[in-house]
């Protein structure tokens, strides 16, 4: 994205640069991921996959990887990581793929059958009613 953040902010009618990634040049994103962006078709991460750190950050680790490990001491959804890191979801997934491959995080994927499983839907109803 080559337009300056101010221009984008104006276009959005909001504060400049208040969207994740908008103030980042593609070059920075390229460097973060070594030129990959997501998600080969086999990428297992969903927006709401819950990620849990399995190790502490170590010195010399890429700063975004270290940030993810700190943020996932408790389960944290992919989309929340992307928002807090201010990175596009696709880039976040690439970073997570690296961490998963090296066993530094584990992933709790959504249960695909939940959408039509009356037991899960009932749990959702109970949870909503108790809000």
């Amino acid at each position, binding site marked *: *994205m*080559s337009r300056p953040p101010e221009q*984008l902010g104006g*276009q*959005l009618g*909001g*504060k400049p640069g*208040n*969207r*994740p*990634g*908008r103030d980042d040049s*593609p070059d920075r*994103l*390229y460097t973060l991921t070594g*030129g990959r*962006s*997501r*998600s*080969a078709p086999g990428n297992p991460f*969903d*927006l*709401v*996959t*819950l990620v849990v750190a399995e190790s502490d950050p170590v010195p010399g680790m890429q700063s*975004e990887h270290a*940030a993810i490990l700190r*943020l996932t*001491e*408790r*389960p*944290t*959804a992919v*989309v*929340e990581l*992307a*928002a*807090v*890191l*201010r990175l*596009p*979801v*696709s880039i976040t997934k690439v970073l997570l793929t690296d961490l998963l491959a090296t066993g530094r995080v584990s992933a*709790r994927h*959504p249960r695909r059958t*939940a*959408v*039509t*499983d*009356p037991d*899960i*839907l*009932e*749990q*959702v*109803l*109970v*949870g*909503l009613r108790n*809000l």
Partner: protein
Amino acid sequence: MDSATSDPAEAADPGPGPDADPDSARRPPLRASADNGLKIVVVGGFGAGKTTLVRSVSEICPLSTEETMTRAGESVDDVSAVRDKNATTVAFDFGRVTLDAHNVLYLFGAPGQERFWFLWDRLFTGALGAVVLVDTRRLDDSWYAIDRLERHGTPFVVARNDFGGPDFAPQAVRDALDLDPDVPLVHCDARLRSSSKRVLIALVEHAKHRYPHSRSRSYDGQVPVLDELNKELPR
């Protein structure tokens, strides 16, 4: 490059950057036992109140993030494609509701315009369902979303957000939207937590109803919240 956000007028709090994490107070951590993320999509035209609804029930200040996708519906496979005019950046807001020790519900506010169809089909696959938030002053904005959800087979309810706009009878709204009689139409004030909560309950009850051939044990044909909501409609 095309870009859009769900609603500048009700833009989500961008939240602090990654360097410090001073947001932990506003973003309480999930329980260690949380293991099942669920999705509900809130769609609607410009200014229909999507973020307002998300905010009113979310346990976190709504956050915003974005995804870059190509027209073909696939995410870009090279960052250089961001410069490609066929790539579109879609910003969306979301909130979170912890339901119990295992289930966590994420609510996504998504732009409903036609040009974002690829977002629907890809980003929100696996959602429990959708809330179509309509502003009776701009019913046209909702046609495409409803058509898309019907084709996709996603359970949805239509929620008429109270803007103090024209006071159409529910049947008039149904007719204008060409709503299938099975699709619940509910009234809400997205600013109120209790009202937004009931919209979500109506959606999940509808979703349960939609799958009568699943291992349903308890569905008895009643949709209590819908009955309750309809009683509130003096129209």
